[in-house]
């Protein structure tokens, strides 16, 4: 789905949207949330990359979604086709329990994860989550945009998330 690059700093709705994690719909809501916070992402600076997020242990196959960040927001969310895999600069993957732990922590703390639930904390040692890429220069984009990516997921505090069984 192509998204509007940004929609300005719109007042946030008090009623949270509900979506199941992981799903394209959930990531679209997260993207819309980020695009509604343009000034925050502008303050953090450009972010140009295609990030692939993967939940490794959902049935019947791992859930994979590609999110395209451009300038200060998200311009595309999609399930990658077979020939799309090389679009992604890097992949962040982990089991549902780890994703869930991070998202619940973010929600519980109203937009900021506990110290042991940040993206970097969870991925740094390669377990329980990890970052992969064929190209180290493209993988380093994950580090170059670390703060923005964390803020992106912090926006999930404003989504009413239900988790896949």
């Amino acid at each position: 789905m192509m998204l509007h690059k940004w929609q300005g700093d719109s007042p946030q709705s008090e009623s949270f949207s509900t979506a199941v994690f992981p799903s394209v719909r959930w990531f679209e809501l997260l993207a819309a949330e980020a695009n509604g916070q343009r000034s925050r992402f502008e303050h953090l600076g450009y972010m140009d990359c295609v990030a692939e997020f993967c939940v490794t242990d959902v049935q019947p196959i791992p859930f994979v979604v590609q999110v395209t960040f451009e300038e200060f927001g998200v311009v595309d969310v999609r399930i990658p086709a077979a020939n799309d895999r090389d679009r992604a600069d890097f992949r962040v993957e982990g089991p549902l329990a780890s994703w869930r732990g991070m998202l619940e922590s973010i929600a519980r703390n109203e937009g900021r994860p506990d110290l042991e639930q940040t993206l970097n904390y969870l991925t740094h040692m390669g377990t329980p989550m990890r970052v992969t890429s064929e190209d180290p220069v493209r993988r380093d984009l994950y580090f170059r945009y670390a703060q923005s990516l964390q803020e992106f997921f912090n926006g999930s505090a404003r989504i009413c998330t239900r988790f896949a069984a």
Partner: protein
Amino acid sequence: MQGVQQAQKGSSGSVVATLSGRRPQGEVLDEYEAEFRRCYTRWMEILYRNAERLARGQFSLHWMDTTQAHWGPRAKPSSRGLLYADINRLPGYGELPEVASWLNFAPRGSVRECYRQDMPEVDDYTVLERDEVWAENVMALYEEAKARQWNATRDIPWHELKPLSEDLEKATCQLCTGLTEVEFVAGDFPAKWMYRIPQDYLEVKSFLSTQIMDEARHQEVFRKRALAGGGLLHSSPGAEWALKAILDAPTHTMGTFLLNLLAEGLVLSVFRSGEMIAKTHVDKEIFRRCLQDEARHVSYGVLQFQWWLDHQPERVEAEEMLHRFADVGEQVILTAFTEPTLVEPIAILLGGGLQKIDAGMEGMMRVWSMFIHEYLQRCERAGFHRRPRCVLPMEAPWRVAA
């Protein structure tokens, strides 16, 4: 003390700091005057010509003649503003010479050839080969660096900082002391070379200036963190040797390999570890912000090195030279990264306290393996097959206590 007082007075006999060491002020001023007197006729002719014109009340509008200029096409901004990439698309402005011949400040793309004989040359411009400095991503990194600047005073939630237990606080402050010590070399190295690079490579100079700013901010934020937590602790002789090895690197590319690819790659791992082991949200934010900057520097290092290798007419010989350099560089860097002022504080923070330092050392072993893997991967990406020659140990050079 007497010398200091003389220098403050500015007397002609006082000894002052110059780029070639401390020398008598009068002596260096004599040399400066002599140099400009030697070229007296050249610049004085220009002055006379201008004075005569002004005295006659005449105008010279030769600068409106666009015959030799790339006048006409107008730069158009792209979606995010007017980038270097946008203006470099205009004919006559974006071509970087393989070897710079303009050793002054005349802008690339301006009408300048007809003035060449009247212009001075700056002897300090010595890095004349494009391939010593260029990287495919340098313009994008420059734009990104400007857009992703942050403020160590304002953007860190300092008011949230709470005291830690003594062992964790001291470990945090020691880590910050070490990082304060190493950060400025990553500013001093590009600064040392930036003024040796001619203006025709303006994109590179622009990027290097952002790296200098980044490193100033890192030094600032780690110094502030230490002083907000109790103070600076111990400096590190091993780090000092590594920093000297970087600063004294014989060429820009060699130094960039050692600083940006190897050392900053390692520091990037330290920052990522720092974010992971941070015991406060303040420390999390500091390390996350810093690691973003560091990753930019690493990216420049990898692609600058790749560009250099790809443009060497004698590739095998060039690689061999770099291997020789890396043999020394890796060992000296290892000296820094085995220092107790660095390893032990990280281990304490990784373990969660002094009593758990052994568990922390196990974590450090994983960080080490990851660093070596990433370093060699970056070398491969640049086209430098370092793996068989690497003198860094593949596994952490310590044992976990039984």
